[in-house]
């Protein structure tokens, strides 16, 4: 889910929470694929995966009136989904004894990890973009031009200098991480 979709999701959930039913279609269209992906990963190979997606959707939309504007919409949806998935897996494992408790928890944690990593990557790209925008236009052009064919030593030197300035600016703005 990109930034624009995240904003749309926040706005749709905010409107739904305020009772605006016309936002339902949009919210459903945004939440449904995200939940299918999350539940699909968390319950990979599970026979009741489809039912779990359905139950999670019902749970999320049943509680959407509690959504507060400004909350991270995707995190809110996925937290509810994670609880629902954990409950379903626990119930199934109790009923059939086919799934071990440790592997279930690991599957849910791994799905959450994937989502967290994607969010961190997105944040890092945004921060890098912000730093590059603060460089002077000449450096930006050098850094953003594609590497095609062998380069003259002068060009290589220019690129190296622009990279050094980028690194130094990054450290100033973001520390050494």
């Amino acid at each position, binding site marked *: 889910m990109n930034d624009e979709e995240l904003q749309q999701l926040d706005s749709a959930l905010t409107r739904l929470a305020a009772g605006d039913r016309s936002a339902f279609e949009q919210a459903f269209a945004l939440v449904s694929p995200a939940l299918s992906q999350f539940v699909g990963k968390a319950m990979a190979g599970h026979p009741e995966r*489809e039912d779990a997606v*359905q139950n999670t*959707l019902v749970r999320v*939309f049943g509680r959407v009136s509690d959504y507060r504007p400004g909350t991270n919409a995707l995190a809110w949806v996925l937290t509810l989904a994670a609880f629902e998935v954990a409950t379903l897996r626990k119930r199934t494992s109790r009923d059939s004894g086919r799934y071990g408790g440790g592997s279930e928890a690991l599957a849910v944690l791994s799905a959450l990890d994937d989502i967290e990593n994607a969010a961190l990557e997105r944040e890092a790209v945004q921060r890098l973009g912000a730093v590059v925008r603060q460089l002077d236009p000449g450096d930006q052009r050098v850094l953003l031009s594609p590497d095609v064919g062998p380069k003259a030593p002068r060009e290589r030197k220019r690129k190296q200098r622009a990279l050094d300035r980028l690194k130094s600016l990054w450290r100033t703005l973001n520390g050494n991480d």
Partner: protein
Amino acid sequence: MAMTEPAQQQAVRRAYEFGRLRYALRMLWVVLPLACVGLALGSSLEALLCLTTLLLVAGGWLRWKGGRLGSAVLPGVLAGSLPLSAAPVAAGCCAMPSHAAVALALIAVIAGAALAMRARQRGRASLMVSLGAALATACLTCMSNGPWMVLGAALGLLAGSIGLLALRGEGRQ
């Protein structure tokens, strides 16, 4: 068994409406204790039942529908709990019912002003709903102390909200 997309959407929509209903009925946790206070302070059971039902049905419907009017109900009930708790004190401290009504009106002014402050960006309809809810809540105890008290609470709430709106208007000019 997996559902088709329209059936799934319908089930999810139903869950959303149930969620709205649960949200609307959550005001029970505020209104019922206030009604119990009214009962303990000697309000008649019939009047309490009427007011509580009115608050729950009208307020619940507005909250279920949502929007600005829906979000104005609970603040109104909470603001109304100020004159509700002040009414028996005023009636106990003042010998004349009219004096008690004036004292209650002075306290209700604060609740009215608070509601007007909250409703500044939400429109007059939202303020009217809040004031209605506040008056109905205040009446849970005011009624047992006579019509003067109901009048005092109503006038106090109105004066507080109109006064604050007028002051704000003047400040802007």
